[in-house]
């Protein structure tokens, strides 16, 4: 792959894919940017011309903006904390030699293959339904009043659903990381007089730090954009309106494409800030 001819051939052959990917990304991006500077109300007169920064100002000064940012952060951080903590525990558990290891591992990974819409519907109707859900039955069995999960504790419920979806991913990455830990290190620590908890803190956790950063990075980028789970369960009500859901409402429910696009641009900027921030942490972690 080092000769000039082979390199230019490689470029030529990669070109279609690169062009396609670029187009895929650039066209919507440019359209979003373009619309964000227009007054574009499809049902109220269509494209009404140049709007300057009006859309941007209106999006952030709207009373629903800051609550949406807050909800987004609560959900993202909540899911991250739950998936990383439980992921580490599950990874350690799955690393232990046990009977039926293969089956258990597949079962643990299974939720990742369920589509978000489907899993949210399953949770909503089979578990969290206040009349017929499994939780309601459980609560009643113990003589308690069933909880209306998706209206009374809507945000935690969504965090729970999304965590359930992402836990397999975190577990999988952390499991591979744990498996790469040299068992002699643990034995050395054992001989050095470190009990189980100390071995976890001083040996396993530092070894996992890189995998944890990667889990956090990848999940954050996807979690900032969760949509289906909210759409299917609460429809953005009961304080579960995230930034991406707000944008969706601006475009489709208020039929204001310009305003929604401005929100989209904010979301892009936010995602990039997070990405850069996390890349630097990862970079630092990968250095040593």
């Amino acid at each position: 792959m080092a000769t000039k001819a082979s390199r230019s051939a490689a470029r030529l052959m990669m070109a279609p894919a690169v062009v396609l990917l670029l187009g895929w990304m650039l066209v919507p991006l440019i359209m979003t940017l373009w619309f964000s500077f227009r007054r574009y109300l499809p049902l109220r007169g269509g494209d009404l011309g140049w709007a300057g920064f009006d859309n941007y100002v209106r999006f952030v000064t709207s009373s629903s903006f800051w609550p949406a940012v807050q909800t987004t952060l609560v959900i993202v951080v909540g899911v991250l904390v739950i998936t990383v903590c439980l992921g580490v525990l599950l990874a350690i558990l799955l690393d232990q030699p046990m009977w039926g290891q293969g089956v258990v591992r597949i079962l643990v990974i299974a939720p990742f293959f369920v589509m978000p819409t489907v899993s949210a519907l399953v949770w909503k109707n089979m578990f969290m339904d206040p009349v017929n859900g499994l939780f309601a039955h459980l609560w009643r069995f113990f003589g308690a009043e069933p909880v209306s999960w998706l209206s009374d504790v809507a945000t935690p419920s969504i965090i729970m659903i999304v965590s359930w979806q992402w836990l397999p991913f975190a577990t999988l990455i952390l499991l591979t990381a744990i498996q790469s830990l040299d068992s002699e290190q643990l034995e050395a620590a054992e001989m050095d007089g470190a009990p189980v908890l100390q071995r976890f803190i001083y040996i396993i956790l530092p070894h996992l730090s890189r995998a944890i950063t990667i889990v956090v990075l990848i999940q954050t980028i996807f979690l900032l954009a969760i949509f289906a789970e909210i759409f299917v369960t609460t429809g953005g009500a009961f304080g579960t309106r995230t930034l991406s859901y707000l944008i969706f409402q601006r475009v489709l429910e208020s039929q204001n494409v310009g305003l929604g696009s401005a929100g989209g641009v904010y979301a892009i900027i936010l995602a990039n800030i997070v990405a850069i921030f996390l890349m630097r942490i990862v970079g630092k972690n990968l250095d040593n």
Partner: protein
Amino acid sequence: MGQIQLKQVTKSFGDVQVIPPLDLTIEDGEFTVFVGPSGCGKSTLLRLIAGLEDISSGHIEIDGKDATNLVPAKRGLAMVFQSYALYPHMSVRKNIAFPLRMAKMDQAEIDRRVDGAAKVLNLADYIDRRPGQLSGGQRQRVAIGRAIVREPAAFLFDEPLSNLDAALRVGMRLEISELHERLKTTMIYVTHDQVEAMTMADKIVVLRAGFIEQVGSPLELYHNPRNEFVAGFIGSPKMNLIKGAEADKHGAATIGIRPEHTDVSMSEGMWQGTVGVAEHLGSDTFIHVHETGLADMVTVRITGDIQAKHGDKIFLTPQLDKLHKFDAQGLRIG
């Protein structure tokens, strides 16, 4: 203090018995080397002593106290692993201090001991580096440093030099021997390197398939191997083992003669053969002799140089007083 006693110790992995009942006493301050072919259970035995594996039956006593069910940390032993097993995210200083921190020692004492170990092992130059930034030999020193700060009753080494290049191995071998002279602490050392075993040990334990074939000082094993296996295992190049008519003449099933105990002549001698390969090392020459009618190949070692080429006729004369005789069961006669 560090006398270790194994009494009827066995170890099985599932149905496979790796260590059959075994008795062994390692005296305080002794440098004991376990040698044996690959897979004979050297590492397993060491790990049993360390407490990293549970023994299947029997007892282990350390300084006369039963340690069979003690956790590794409570046995007061320190181990140096083949892969060094340094903690990659901690600096050299933190690595060495780790066992002391775990023992909740106060900081001043930790610093004193770490600095002491650093001085003994010449670690001062890279005490603040991470293990990843060190060479193999330096890592080895750090691993030893981490072991000595605990002032253990005994050190356990599992092939600690096998990842080093030849020159460094010689250097580290000397350093470990010197350390032993200075600390006078019991050391158990696993290796399959002849030279390490012979030069470092006070006592060599030769293992085969978990059985102890012989225990003794290096020279004892060299001069009086108890059986054919030990005879063939100790010494380099290997002892020539000859069966058949020639052995019958000496009233044995097998006779053994070391390569260095055979005289060589180009004109006359007891046995005749053809030179196969002659390895000239400068100080010594190893000659592999074929077509002697005794064994596939007979190796001789002579001091200095000799003009022997491939295909030359050569005559060998064993020094009869250095001849080893074994019976049909492979046990030494006389």
